[in-house]
């Protein structure tokens, strides 16, 4: 038996045989042909069948309201029916007298490299779509495409380096118990697709292909990111029981995902989504997000892309709010530093970026080029929309006052240009530096709401570098010192009727949620995929009981005791 841990990207528990998805590198044959008409027919037929396959997948997905995936696949169809791609392929066939596979590959490479040459990360990724589609048609021409779907005959856990939307499409989903991959991320289309099929998925398991054999039995826990190779009999029967309980729990959670959430004794807790890139939004809406508690605007600025101007930003913030049906959106101003940079900003490398020129500090320094356009864009988008502004990395009251003066300057400039904006926009701050939590009382007079970023608050309070694996084991949000700071912040805020949200990883941690609710948090903002479960956890908590227990937790100073104190408030399946 061996236990390995990775990143959970689609929840669920399953046990079954391993199926290694071996992707032979596509070898494209090149040979001369006489009968050009025959090659033309072959390529046209392969495309027609490919299109039919993708179309039936789109039909199945649209029933599940997977608009995002349908759009990706629609684009794939457009590539398949592209007249220029076909013309170029046919011209190669007729002029060079070469086989269809070779000519299609040459034609699609022509377009892929042209698209790749465009100075834009998004377009570079699209070049790979062209290659993927052409590979798909070529493997159909070679008759190797059916290898996977044909060999998979019994329910199995798919193990692969990576998995694409098209590969998932070609698998019989009734036989797929789970996905285990070496590379991937939570925002991958494949992960979104797995979630819509409710297939557990754990990724980021480097080297896993070398460790698993086709004869192994595997158990996957997509909630915790755990994979067990050849579980022993105890582990095995435990897992089966867990799986059944989880299915009941998750079905209940999904059925109620779009409902507002109250504790069992009626305290209202809002559950919002953290959004870090635009293609997360349909998923967030589907999972029942009541708004966006943290819109990380970094995705607009990172990489080599141009810094988006005021108009472009205003358009994006407005459209995000509109796609949430006008629900509350909290836009956090840019939080980058020398570790996450935009090449156009010329940031110098720093010895210690977490403590360096970042977030609000950097924005003040780049006031004209960065900060003012963003503030104005948020002000304009908040006109007749429920959009609020939040500042990251606040450490002193002076910073907030300085920002508010700048906000007035921005308003005046917009007014001079006769631009419409919301003059009474709500302003909040992230509580993520201990000094901000300690001075929470003073901040309540300056701002409308707080959102506690527990990841950074923990890192700064406990002096633990989150990115340093040698010490990251010490990184725990339920540390008594961190809890004390959260408690202090909430008390200060509630005295002045201000709300407090938690937007760090702690907000989605089943063990932490009862404590956070007990000390009075008003709102939890989590990754979209966690929303149904977080809501279900809240429904199972009695606020009065959580309040009593959290008072004990705050006086415990012992993490093992914290676990036993809160145990009664956590659904069995998530312990």
């Amino acid at each position, binding site marked *: 038996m061996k236990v390995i841990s990775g990143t959970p990207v689609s929840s669920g528990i399953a046990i079954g045989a391993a199926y290694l998805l071996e992707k032979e590198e596509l070898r494209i044959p090149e040979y001369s042909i006489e009968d050009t008409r025959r090659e033309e027919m072959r390529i046209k037929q392969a495309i027609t069948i490919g299109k039919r396959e993708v179309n039936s997948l789109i039909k199945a997905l649209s029933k599940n309201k997977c608009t995002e995936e349908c*759009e990706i696949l*629609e*684009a794939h*169809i*457009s*590539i398949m*029916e*592209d*007249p*220029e*791609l076909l013309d170029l392929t046919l011209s190669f066939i007729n002029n060079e007298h070469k086989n269809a596979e070779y000519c299609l590959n040459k034609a699609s490479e022509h*377009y892929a490299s*042209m*698209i790749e040459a*465009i*100075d*834009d990360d*998004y*377009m570079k990724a*699209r070049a790979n*779509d*062209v290659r993927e589609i052409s590979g798909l048609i070529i493997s159909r021409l070679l008759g190797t495409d059916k290898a996977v779907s044909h060999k998979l005959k019994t329910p199995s856990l798919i193990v692969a380096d990576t998995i694409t939307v098209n590969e998932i499409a070609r698998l019989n989903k009734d036989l797929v118990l789970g996905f285990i991959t070496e590379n991937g991320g939570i925002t991958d289309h494949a992960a979104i697709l797995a979630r819509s099929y409710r297939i557990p998925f754990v990724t980021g398991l480097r080297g896993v292909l070398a460790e698993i054999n086709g004869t192994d039995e595997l158990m996957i826990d997509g909630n915790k990111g755990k994979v067990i190779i050849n579980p022993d009999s105890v582990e095995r029967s435990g897992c089966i029981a867990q799986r059944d309980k989880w299915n009941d729990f998750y079905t209940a959670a999904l059925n109620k995902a779009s409902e507002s959430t109250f504790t069992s004794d009626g305290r209202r807790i809002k559950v919002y989504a953290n959004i870090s890139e635009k293609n997360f939004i349909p998923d967030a809406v589907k999972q029942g997000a009541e708004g966006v508690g943290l819109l990380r605007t970094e995705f607009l600025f990172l990489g080599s892309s141009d810094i988006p101007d005021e*108009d*472009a930003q205003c*358009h*994006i913030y407005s*459209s995000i709010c509109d796609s949430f049906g006008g629900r509350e959106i909290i836009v956090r101003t840019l939080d980058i530093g020398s570790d996450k940079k935009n090449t156009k900003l010329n940031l110098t490398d720093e010895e210690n970026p977490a403590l360096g020129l970042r977030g609000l500090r950097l924005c003040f320094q780049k006031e004209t080029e960065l900060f003012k356009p963003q503030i104005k864009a948020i002000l304009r988008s908040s006109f007749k929309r429920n959009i609020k502004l939040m500042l990251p990395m606040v450490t002193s009251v002076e910073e907030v006052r300085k920002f508010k003066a700048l906000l007035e300057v921005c308003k005046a400039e917009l007014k001079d240009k006769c631009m419409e904006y919301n003059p009474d926009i709500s302003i909040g701050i992230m509580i993520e530096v201990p000094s901000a939590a300690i001075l929470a009382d003073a901040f309540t007079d300056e701002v409308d709401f707080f959102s506690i970023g527990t990841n950074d608050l923990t890192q700064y309070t406990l002096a633990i570098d989150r990115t340093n694996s040698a010490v990251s084991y010490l990184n725990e949000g339920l540390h008594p010192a961190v809890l004390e700071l959260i408690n202090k912040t909430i008390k200060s805020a509630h005295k002045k009727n201000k709300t407090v949200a938690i937007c760090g990883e702690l907000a989605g941690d089943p063990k932490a949620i009862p404590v956070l609710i007990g000390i009075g948090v008003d709102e939890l903002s989590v990754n979209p995929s966690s929303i149904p479960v977080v809501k279900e956890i809240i429904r199972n908590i009695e606020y009065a009981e959580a309040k009593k227990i959290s008072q004990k937790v705050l006086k415990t100073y012992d993490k093992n005791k914290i676990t036993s104190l809160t145990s009664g408030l956590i659904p069995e399946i998530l312990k």
Partner: protein
Amino acid sequence: MEERTVTVKDKIGLHARTSSLFSKKAMMFASEVKIVFGQKEANGKSMLAIMSLGVKHGMEIKIKVNGEDEKKTAELLAEFVENNFA
């Protein structure tokens, strides 16, 4: 020959989704459709050709239509782009 000049409002420009939508729309007409962007010209019924132009947010393109239903085609395609591909 009919020509219309329009501005691409989509925040990313003519990327996969918008190019796909445009080429699909263009394919519904019999006329030949071309998109002119600077010195480059692309078949308006080819998503890949449109994408390779690299048109970004806020840039102007010219839609050139040639054929029996050119007037109606140019009109509808220009409107389609103006309406942000909706």
